[in-house]
């Protein structure tokens, strides 16, 4: 049976691109025209509940942040509502602004997450400054999620280099009331009641930039993904190293052994191959790949070990990658897609056995997401 084409969605420093598979084998690709020209696009995400629907978090340097939606795989876009931070008088903790300011403006839109299939019109949106919003009408209106935005530990949260952002949102596929969010630099938080109450879940994650070694909050989490096969298995790229949790984030174990450095930003895990996660370790000082070439490292939960997926000279050079820069499709074998901060798009159609570069020089890539049907 013929399947729909794989589509790669790129959010870049200068707009949005859709790259579409040309011949059904994930080896030939067609790059579509630039959308949202000139704007920083932090995240472009297809909504798997509504094939063809795609959202883009567009952060215009001139006109501010806005959420755009496409109903035709990114060919045309229209603006939906942009969330607004609550007025100062309507909220409990201070967001860091001066006391005479009526409100702090929203700076950047980071991560948009489609809700559970059981809530087909629900979206979640993480923004800078640290806040989570929920929409139950496909982005026509947004409500702040007070349980996390007004969290008692908020005064201990600080901005990372990318600003004070909420950048990671995970929803339990079996229970939409169980969610996880990641904030820099505050750490990971979990709710079991749909967002009313949130518990910091950063046990055993180091903070080498703070006087306390293992505080409850303050971790600069960079990105976290869930394993597709085990509900309580998560992979975490933190400023303080690479970690795995096997107990629903109650605790974390650092898995540095075998890596020259476990700093980095990006992590992805393939739906068709549970028990595996991909990382792009970077030099913690330069924030660039090591050993003179791009490299994706595969973690195997079964073997509890690492292996490189590229030869040392597959893509020579020194590369950076952002937290949303690595993605997998849902096919078997999984495709792996990596977008760099200098605009290269590397991909493997066969779980890392072979690699190619899409022959197009993009602007610096913020995010890579992939839409693909299940099957082979």
């Amino acid at each position, binding site marked *: 049976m013929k399947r729909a084409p794989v589509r790669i969605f790129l959010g870049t420093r200068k707009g949005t691109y859709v790259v579409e598979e040309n011949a059904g084998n994930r080896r030939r690709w067609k790059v579509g025209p630039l959308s949202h020209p000139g704007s920083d696009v932090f995240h472009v995400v297809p909504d798997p509940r509504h094939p063809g629907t795609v959202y883009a978090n567009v952060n215009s340097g001139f006109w501010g942040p806005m959420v755009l939606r496409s109903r035709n795989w990114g060919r045309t876009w229209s603006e939906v509502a942009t969330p607004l931070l609550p007025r100062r008088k309507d909220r409990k903790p201070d967001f860091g602004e001066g006391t005479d300011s009526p409100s702090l*403006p929203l700076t950047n839109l980071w991560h948009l997450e489609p809700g559970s299939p059981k809530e087909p019109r629900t979206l979640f949106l993480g923004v800078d400054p640290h806040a989570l919003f929920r929409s139950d009408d496909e982005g026509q209106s947004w409500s702040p999620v007070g349980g996390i935005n007004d969290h008692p530990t908020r005064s201990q949260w600080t901005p990372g280099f990318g600003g004070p952002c909420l950048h990671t949102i995970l929803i339990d596929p079996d229970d939409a009331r169980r969610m996880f969010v990641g904030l820099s630099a505050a750490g990971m938080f979990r709710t079991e009641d749909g967002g009313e109450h949130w518990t910091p879940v950063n046990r055993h994650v180091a903070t080498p930039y703070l006087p306390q070694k293992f505080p409850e909050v303050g971790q600069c989490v960079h990105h976290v993904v869930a394993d597709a096969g085990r509900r309580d298995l998560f992979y975490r790229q933190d400023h303080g190293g690479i970690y795995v949790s096997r107990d629903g984030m109650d605790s974390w174990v650092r898995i540095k052994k075998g890596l020259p450095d476990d700093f980095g930003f990006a992590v992805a895990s393939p739906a068709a191959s549970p028990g595996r996660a991909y990382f792009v370790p970077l030099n913690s000082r330069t924030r660039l790949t090591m050993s003179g070439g791009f490299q994706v490292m595969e973690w195997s939960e079964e073997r509890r070990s690492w292996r490189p997926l590229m030869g040392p000279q597959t893509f020579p050079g020194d590369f950076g990658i952002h937290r949303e820069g690595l993605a997998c499709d849902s096919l078997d074998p999984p495709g792996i897609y990596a977008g760099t901060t200098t605009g290269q798009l590397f991909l493997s159609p066969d779980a890392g056995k072979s690699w190619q570069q899409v022959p197009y020089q993009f602007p610096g890539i913020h995010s890579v997401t992939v839409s693909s049907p299940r099957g082979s």
Partner: protein
Amino acid sequence: MALVRLDAWLGEFGAPRETEAQASDVEGLLMDLESRYPRLRYRLRDEAGAVRRFVRIFVDGRDILQSEGLRTPLGAHAVVDILHSIAGG
């Protein structure tokens, strides 16, 4: 009536290149524009009401930052230019 000349890029939010507006100061003029062209709301100003960092507004050729900001008064025949600033790269 003030004559308002708008940045061509604002066309993507439904704004015309040129229009007229009745207001006594710049804030009133922006409120008038935002009400007639709703998609301009939050594009020229953020939700706190401040003019965005890289939006420039001139009244009779003078930057409102060198005048009274949003309180800059508009004469009966004022010419208001709303532009994006030189920034980016």
